[in-house]
């Protein structure tokens, strides 16, 4: 049943230029039958351009080089072409029709029809069960997609792709929106696909995932092909070094800061549950934070960690109660603006949604929260603005041509650095971080960690919320585990462990 040579898919010397910028330079890539090939590289390494060419969605379509499937040269002019050739894509961002049912999404474009050409619902539901089973997704096909969790939606995307019986499945960082357990489930599904003779291109920069599922690894950097490895022959450290192009000494460059007196005090804090009426998601918690301390708040997704930070920062006010002191002064009566002015910064979980302005320049984003520093009598002092922006642009070594570059041109890591720069420019006393390294490549992660550590060194009190256990454990001085509305455990870094935190986080309320 197989014709052609050893390779199912070959990319031969692919080069793609956008005007003066070369996004891909002479990239060669070979995918064998029934294997998972991981493509890793930092953002901007050319992965997404490669994806676009493969999926036929590169609107200009003028790349150099050849794509061969089963040794047959192919050229995709539209996504339809790519699909016909047996290539299916799973994107980082989920593209489902939220208001339609699971089954409709599964068969979108190819709804099973009865002999009267109406939609054959019974068959559709039945088939849907089967496809959902394949990916281990146990939901009712008649359910609306918007009622599914993010990971369920991601699984559904995969089920939908498999329903088209592809030969090659291309996955672009499919786990970036998932929690650890959800991600593991997904990886298991991908491993199973091999058995169904579906080969996978798995694009990621998460080392643990790559080593769990990949047979081989290809590293890209700055649009160039750097190396090919069999997964069993290479170490994560070597891969990371290939990706960033230099030796990484320490992933978590945490320095021990001097921990001073208490700067933030929270007492009897309650936050109502966003979906359930008459229930508090955070139910009467109290804690303190000291200068120079990094306090980690652990917990499962949905435990109320973000809600807690939101409410202290006054980003969400309805129904919140409790007392907050900053340097001994009550601040819970202030507005969001007042809280910000008094010295609290908040790097939110979803930077795209409320962290930065995508259409604006780096400069505008950096000064956004400190307009008072660059404004004299209502007028913007453009020179001061450029000076400030340049100062932070350099200090955080944001990778971009200049401070006028629009944010949407930047990689996730650089965007996050700009968001951080925005808060650093305000006179910070306390900084909240909510998942600061989500969707960011390894190189940039380390830089963010260094910046957090530096801030603590300057005596800023820091609260870090993260679902990435290694990150949390390496960075924090103290840990609080939030579960069912209350802190269930407290650890210091001397007695903490991943298991202890998980145990406390999954603790069921006793009574």
């Amino acid at each position: 049943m197989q014709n052609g040579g050893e390779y199912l898919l070959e990319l031969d010397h692919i080069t793609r230029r956008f005007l003066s910028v070369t996004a891909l330079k002479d990239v060669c890539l070979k995918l064998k039958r029934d294997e998972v090939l991981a493509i890793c590289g930092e953002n901007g390494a050319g992965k997404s351009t490669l994806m676009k060419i493969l999926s036929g969605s590169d609107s200009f379509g003028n790349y150099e080089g050849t794509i061969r499937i089963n040794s047959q040269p192919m050229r995709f002019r539209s996504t339809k072409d790519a699909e016909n050739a047996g290539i299916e894509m799973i994107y980082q961002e989920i593209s489902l029709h939220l208001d339609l049912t699971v089954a409709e999404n599964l068969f979108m474009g190819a709804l099973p029809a009865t002999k009267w050409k109406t939609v054959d619902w019974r068959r559709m539901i039945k088939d849907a069960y089967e496809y959902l089973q394949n990916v281990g997704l146990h939901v009712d096909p008649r359910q609306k997609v918007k009622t599914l969790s993010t990971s369920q939606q991601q699984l559904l995307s995969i089920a939908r792709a498999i329903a088209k019986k592809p030969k090659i499945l291309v996955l672009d960082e499919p786990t970036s929106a998932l929690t650890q357990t959800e991600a593991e489930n997904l990886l298991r599904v991908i491993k199973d696909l091999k058995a169904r003779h579906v080969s996978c291109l798995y694009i990621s920069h998460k080392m643990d995932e790559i080593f769990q599922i990949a047979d081989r690894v290809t590293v890209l950097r700055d649009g160039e092909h750097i190396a090919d490895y069999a997964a069993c022959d290479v170490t994560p450290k070597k891969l990371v070094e290939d990706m960033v192009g230099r030796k990484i000494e320490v992933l978590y460059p945490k320095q021990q800061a001097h921990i001073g007196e208490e700067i933030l005090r929270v007492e009897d804090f309650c936050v109502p549950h966003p979906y359930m009426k008459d229930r508090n998601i955070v139910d009467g918690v109290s804690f303190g934070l000291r200068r120079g301390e990094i306090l980690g708040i652990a917990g499962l997704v949905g435990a109320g960690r973000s809600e807690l930070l939101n409410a202290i920062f006054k980003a969400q006010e309805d129904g919140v109660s409790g007392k907050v002191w900053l340097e001994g002064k009550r601040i819970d009566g202030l507005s969001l603006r007042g809280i910000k002015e008094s010295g609290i910064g908040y790097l939110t979980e979803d930077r795209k949604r409320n962290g930065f302005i995508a259409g604006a320049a780096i400069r505008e984003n950096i000064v956004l929260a400190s307009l008072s520093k660059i404004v004299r009598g209502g007028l913007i002092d453009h020179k001061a603005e450029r000076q400030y922006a340049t100062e932070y642009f350099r200090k955080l070594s944001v990778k971009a041509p200049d401070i006028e570059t629009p944010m949407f041109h930047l990689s996730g890591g650089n965007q996050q650095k700009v968001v951080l720069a925005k808060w650093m420019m305000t006179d910070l006393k306390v900084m909240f971080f909510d998942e600061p390294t989500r969707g960011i490549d390894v190189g940039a992660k380390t830089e963010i960690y260094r910046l957090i550590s530096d801030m603590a060194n300057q005596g800023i009190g820091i609260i870090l919320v993260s679902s990435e256990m290694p990150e949390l454990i390496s960075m924090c001085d103290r840990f609080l585990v939030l579960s069912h509305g209350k802190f269930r455990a407290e650890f210091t870094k001397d007695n903490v462990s991943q298991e202890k935190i998980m145990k406390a986080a999954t603790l069921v309320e006793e009574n």
Partner: protein
Amino acid sequence: MNSHSKKSKLSQLLQRFDQLGIVLVLIVLMVAVGFKNSTFYSWDNIINVLRSTSFIFIIGIAITYVLITGGLDLSVGSVMAMAGILSAMTAQAGAPLLVSILCGILFGFAIGLINGILVVRMNIPTLIVTLGMMYVVDGLVLIVTKGSPIYPLPDSFKALGQGSILGVPNIVLIALVLALIGAFVLHNTQYGRCVYAIGGNRETARLAGIHVNAIQMSVYVLASVSASLGGILMAGRLNSAQPSAGSGYELTVVAAVIIGGTSMFGGSGSIFGTLLGALLMTVIENALLLMKISAYWQSLIVGIIIIFAVGLDQYRRKKYGMG
């Protein structure tokens, strides 16, 4: 993708010039019509074009602000008519010029405030709020006038709309001054920066401590007040306040603003672009007439030219946006 090749300063400048397409189309149009009929360049015709542009542009300046915040205001046409009528009526009743102008402006202020409050506090989509307001104000116009114009107006009122300085009509001068102020505020003040930020990402702006509600409300007030001013000037110019004044302006103005490159989704836009948009609209209309193109063909051609001009800019943006 961040390697930067060296380009000449000029070509870089052209690349960043968002409205190059419109400018080119304008130039081609102006040269073409000049060949066909040189009266296009007569002082009278230039004044005529500038004057019609000014009415669109005065309101366009404020609508640019509204669109940059990601909003929309469809009530400006009706507000124009009503403000003109109120001012004309008070002027007819013998009130001093300043008082009658103030009357119209205050009306605009009130309508803008209501629009703003409904949008910000009640969270009703701007399209619905301002569409509703358009009907309401239209209704007021009919109730007050019974459909007939307020006519004639006192001389002082006429002088306002018909007067000129060194041959340039007042309205054109007023538009010029407002444009300079509008552009200055947008680019050089904290307020202008906040307007952009809100349209760029409202949540981000809010979390950065910007008074998003107050600023959003203010742009609706600006829009209504400038519509009032436009309505009053128009009444002066026509020596009568017509109940039909400003009809269709809500769309013409929004079209001019969007043609000028202001995003319908907020976050970007410029007063200069709006000026070009307004100019393009009036120049096309004027040019077609001067080129003796039958009225039956005009709409078709206007549509093609607009799509072509904006399409050219979109294409360029897409092409250079990749780099």
